[in-house]
């Protein structure tokens, strides 16, 4: 279900959405905008000496991975999501930068601001990607011309390199952007979607990840045209529902609308340890820290959760998670207790642990309903006082004693502001 939000632009009324659906049957014009090597580009704006050199942004510690790399670095065979160690072996001269999510968000916001001002309907699908629906604009400006103008405005005002693809739907627009890169643009006109996709590798279809790629490759399917010629039933039998969806995308069909508001369905936090650990006390302290911090975000965002999930990944990558439904709550003590009991149920193997994580989902709008017998006045007042201190002096200004030793778990700004989370490219599904 699509939920429309208060902060959407006023013209996106239900009627307009119907119109949009109607248009879906006719012809749409969708632009996909992508900032090239976004994190690197931001670093280069701050330090011009990085220009023209291989630059890597990502975790610098032993377990770090590459979040973004400059095109110079890509020439060495480096790609995002590659372990940092391996990247450094491939290109020992590369400059490694730890990265700063705050700065990237700021640049991303600047780009959003321009797009918001210029475009009738846009969707920010991640920190460096946007979809814009400019259906019907052809008559007045010419879509391609309008998109080129928007691109030069963004480059002029922010100095960030940018690529775009213009086509009749989101999938083809995204694929064409990737083809246009770096710092270029492309238009795939109506009727040309299928021939455009045909010669490309099946890897280029969004949704085809490593696993699916291997499955399809194992059957000798290498290029999109093979899927285009396959009957849809075969894909269904092969990959189930996803298969049908991939088949449609391969045909250049995609009716998903451009949705201007990004609704948070869950909030989560996880940590990969520098070194795998078996220190149960430390694991529990870290889980408490996460549970507490996420509960604070819930209260601040006026949300309640009714599903708690805990994930444990052992050193052999065996990943287990377990969830439990709870009555709607945003209270530390109930949530920490649930997280602890889930962890106790989960942590069965006496093996080193690589990662732990907590997720709250099934969120609803609302404030915590105080319980007559279980909540004392003191505890409610304590939560409110702690939240006040945190909002004024920062999220780590006041903490539980058990969480004191754990280092701060990555901070978010308000996770319920309708914007996509700041997740680097290599961690996107």
């Amino acid at each position: 279900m699509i939920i429309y939000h208060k902060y959407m632009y006023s013209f996106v009324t239900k009627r307009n959405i119907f119109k949009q659906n109607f248009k879906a049957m006719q012809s749409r014009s969708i632009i996909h905008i992508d900032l090239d090597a976004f994190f690197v580009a931001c670093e280069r704006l701050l330090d011009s000496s990085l220009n023209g050199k291989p630059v890597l942004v990502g975790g610098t510690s032993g377990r770090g991975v590459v979040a973004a790399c400059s095109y110079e670095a890509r020439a060495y065979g480096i790609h995002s999501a590659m372990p940092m160690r391996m990247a450094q072996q491939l290109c020992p001269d590369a400059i490694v930068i730890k990265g700063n999510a705050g700065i990237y968000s700021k640049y991303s916001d600047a780009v959003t601001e321009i797009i918001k001002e210029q475009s009738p309907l846009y969707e920010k699908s991640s920190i460096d990607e946007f979809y814009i629906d400019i259906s019907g604009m052809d008559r007045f400006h010419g879509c391609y011309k309008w998109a080129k103008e928007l691109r030069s405005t963004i480059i002029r005002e922010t100095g960030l390199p940018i690529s775009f693809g213009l086509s009749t739907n989101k999938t083809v627009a995204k694929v064409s952007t990737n083809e246009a890169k770096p710092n270029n643009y492309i238009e795939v006109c109506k009727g040309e979607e299928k021939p455009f996709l045909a010669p490309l590798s099946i890897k280029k279809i969004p949704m085809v990840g490593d696993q699916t790629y291997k499955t399809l490759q194992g059957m000798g399917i290498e290029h999109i045209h093979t899927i285009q010629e396959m009957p849809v039933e075969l894909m269904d039998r092969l990959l189930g529902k996803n298969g049908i969806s991939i088949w449609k995308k391969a045909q250049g069909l995609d009716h998903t609308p451009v949705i201007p508001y990004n609704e948070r369905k869950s909030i989560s936090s996880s940590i990969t340890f520098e070194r795998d650990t078996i220190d149960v006390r430390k694991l529990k302290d870290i889980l408490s820290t996460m549970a507490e911090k996420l509960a604070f975000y819930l209260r601040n965002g006026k949300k309640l959760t009714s599903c708690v999930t805990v994930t444990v990944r052992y050193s052999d990558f065996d990943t287990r998670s377990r969830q439990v439904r709870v009555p709607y709550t945003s209270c530390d003590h109930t949530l920490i207790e649930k997280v602890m009991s889930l962890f106790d149920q989960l942590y069965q193997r006496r093996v080193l642990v690589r990662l732990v994580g907590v997720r709250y989902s099934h969120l609803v709008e609302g404030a915590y309903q105080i319980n007559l017998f279980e909540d004392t006045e003191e505890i409610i007042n304590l939560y409110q006082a702690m939240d006040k201190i945190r909002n004024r002096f920062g999220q780590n200004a006041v903490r539980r004693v058990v969480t004191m030793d754990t280092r701060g778990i990555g901070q978010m700004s308000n996770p319920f502001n309708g914007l996509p989370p700041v997740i680097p490219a290599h961690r996107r599904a």
Partner: protein
Amino acid sequence: MKFIVSSSLLSKKLQVIAGVLNTSNTLPILDDFLFEVKKNKLTISASDLETTMTTKVDIESKDSGSIAIPARLLLDTLKTFPEQPLTFLIDNDNQGIQISSDYGKYKLSGHSSDEFPKIPTIDDGEKLDLSAELLARALSKTIFATGNDELRPVMNGVLCEFSTDDITFVATDAHKLVRYRRSDAKVETGASFIIPKKPLSLLKNALPEDETDISVSIQYNDSNAFFTLDGSNLVCRLIDGKYPNYDAVIPKENQNRLSVDRQAFLNCVKRVSIFSNKTTHQVRLKVSGSELQVSAEDLDFANEAVERLTCQYDGEDMEIGFNSRFLSEMLSNLDSDEIILELSAPNKAGLLSQAPGSAVDGEHLLMLVMPVMLND
């Protein structure tokens, strides 16, 4: 075995006890009514193991015996008959039942009455009498506030406390609480037990609405309670456990006192809550001077509502959030024209009561509602 009974009388009596039947039973025999015939008297029972209801019907019969008859089939058949005598002919050997009406014959097969669970009896328990009117009123004020949480079974029932000074009924689900006390009724020996909500609702429906002089006799021991009225009776298992200490959580002193027209407040809450979140139903009350502002919003759909009411208010300005469901349930279960809402702080319980002078003599009704934790 053979007996003749009036169709409408039988139907009426069966309707009363049919509420006991569950839609899905583990024991097939629990889908049946137990018919016991003895000297022109028919006793019918329905049971779900926890609760058993029994009622008596006058019939014409020379025999005596018993049989279990499938309830759904019988109820559906009876519904279609206008008033007329029905003849039941029961073959005790193969549990075959033949019903004859003015229109024709209907055959169905029953079960042996031995399979039907034994109905508990009380010989040694304490006994007391209450007026049906009082009991009906007490139940209608309290049942709605009981809980539904299987993890806390004591809250799924109503606490009945009978003492030498007064009698008290309490229900709570940990978010709201109702205490119904009558100082005009008392008993000789004190007692306290928790009755599950299902038999209480059944009892409430079985109580006559207008006749005031009927009394219900209650008999109880450690595990069961027995209610007898007007030819029918109900046995139920009591909830075993310790009821939370409700007196400790009822605030003694709530300084901020708001008095408002009940119907106006109820209508206002109902209207505004349509605009609240569909899952949490939260509304916000803001009191200042002699104005009560009720507001709600649902950010997901950009819905918003604000209403203002005039009220009498004696206290500090306050903003407090409540689940609108609780408020409207409570307001519709109060009867007075004017109600009193006593508050102390946005994080503490609010107390709802009827304006003084409007209650029945000797009746003390108190409703407590916990707020939601507003964070601003």
